[in-house]
């Protein structure tokens, strides 16, 4: 395949990151963010700062018409103020929707400087803080992209079938708000994004370029939050899953917490409601995030990084790569005490 879109390069800071977490990532995939910080600090030797005073960006509230835009902007300005106070300039955003929202706000301010002034006024009035715009702002997956070869050099596993030596077939899914609003802010743009493909290829896997690759996962915030609306959300995921099915993917990797959540959970729901599964051999397709994918190749314990919180079981995928794990400790706490299996998971449904 000829690649012209490698031209979308973006400036990704080398070190000294101010990290802002994602509300939903730390709930849906509770190991992922700690894992990311650990990789950066202990494997790549980078400085990552987290501020205990940092809050939600209000993205979910904003996208569900609960939080007014000016409030959202003031909250975001406060995050920027925290970063300034701690002496950092390079913002790393965990959530794709936060990243999109920050990008949108910076763009609004660029075009409407009086709006920025107004928000600065609100922030001073409410908190006494002042802020600077980030010198460099990237999504967490961009950092892994930047250091993908360094990670490959110290990786313990490759994304290949250990029996056959064949690369795993991996579907990449990029959150809409990563590059669809501002293609120039995404590695590789939005139509043929490179950010996760870069990780997959550098770590030995192969990317599945299936027709509905660019289709939204269906999360959509307001389209999910009200129960009666969820049919709309799951219909989108189904379009994607049906389209990727003939390629028999081993794995889905997503950089957006919402996408990873829904591509994972809706597979369970589709099996329960319609009896449909979309992976090879009548199995569902495991879904991991970019941090978890990095963690797996670097040899972290799957249960340490929280893969037991995924709805689709990951064990067959781990076996295929040759990653060791203790099946008995899947639902154990940190001291190794069993805390009981989740009630909703029927272990026969795999």
């Amino acid at each position: 395949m000829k690649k012209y879109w490698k031209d979308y390069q973006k400036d990704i800071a080398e070190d000294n990151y101010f990290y802002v977490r994602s509300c939903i990532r730390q709930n849906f995939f509770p190991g992922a963010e700690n894992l990311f910080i650990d990789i950066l600090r202990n494997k790549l030797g980078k400085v990552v700062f987290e501020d205990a005073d940092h809050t939600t960006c209000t993205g979910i509230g904003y996208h569900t018409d609960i939080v007014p835009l000016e409030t959202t902007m003031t909250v975001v300005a406060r995050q920027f103020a925290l970063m300034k106070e701690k002496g950092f300039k390079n913002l790393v955003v965990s959530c794709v929707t936060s990243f999109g929202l920050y990008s949108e706000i910076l763009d609004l301010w660029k075009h409407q400087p009086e709006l920025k002034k107004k928000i600065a006024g609100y922030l001073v009035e409410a908190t006494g803080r002042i802020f600077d715009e980030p010198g460099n702002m990237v999504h967490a997956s961009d950092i892994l992209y930047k250091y993908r070869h360094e990670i490959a050099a110290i990786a313990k596993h490759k994304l290949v079938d250990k029996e056959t030596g064949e690369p795993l077939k991996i579907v990449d899914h990029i959150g809409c708000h990563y590059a669809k609003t501002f293609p120039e802010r995404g590695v590789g743009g939005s139509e043929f994004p490179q950010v996760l493909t870069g990780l997959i290829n550098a770590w030995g896997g192969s990317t599945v370029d299936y027709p509905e690759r660019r289709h939204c996962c269906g999360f959509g915030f307001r389209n999910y939050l009200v129960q009666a609306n969820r049919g709309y959300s799951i219909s989108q995921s189904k379009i994607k899953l049906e389209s990727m099915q003939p390629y028999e993917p081993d794995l889905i990797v997503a950089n957006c917490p919402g996408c990873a959540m829904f591509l994972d959970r809706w597979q369970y729901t589709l099996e329960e409601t319609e009896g449909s599964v979309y992976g090879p051999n009548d199995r569902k397709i495991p879904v991991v995030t970019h941090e978890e994918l990095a963690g797996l190749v670097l040899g972290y314990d799957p249960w340490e990084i929280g893969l037991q919180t995924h709805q689709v079981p990951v064990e067959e995928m781990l076996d295929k790569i040759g990653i060791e794990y203790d099946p008995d400790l899947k639902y154990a706490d940190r001291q190794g005490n069993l805390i009981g299996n989740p009630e909703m998971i029927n272990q026969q449904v795999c």
Partner: protein
Amino acid sequence: MAGKKNFGFERHAGRQIDLDHADNSLATELAEVVSAWSACISCGSCAATCPAGQNVGFNFRRLHYKIKLSLEVETDNYPSLLTSCLLCGKCQLVCPRGIPTRYLSIQIMQKTKHYAEVIPPV
């Protein structure tokens, strides 16, 4: 048992027109007998002037365009829709492409199975 659970919401049926799997036999047959029909540019003159369309939800332009796309062929409801047609022929007078639309209307009725059961073809 998988495939039965109710989570309080329903998946949507797709709205996408699938041109790959369309059964276009009716469209092909009609295009053979009313060759000029293929030259329709969807200007809407026929529907604008149609007396039936002034009062009921009958849109002749839309109806024959749907046949061209093979939409709703499976429900076979074209004749029932066409019962609104008065066969007055005004549509034919105003068609800039010179399509014999009155004849097209008759042909749709005749070539549709359900209608053929009611009124035998002439």
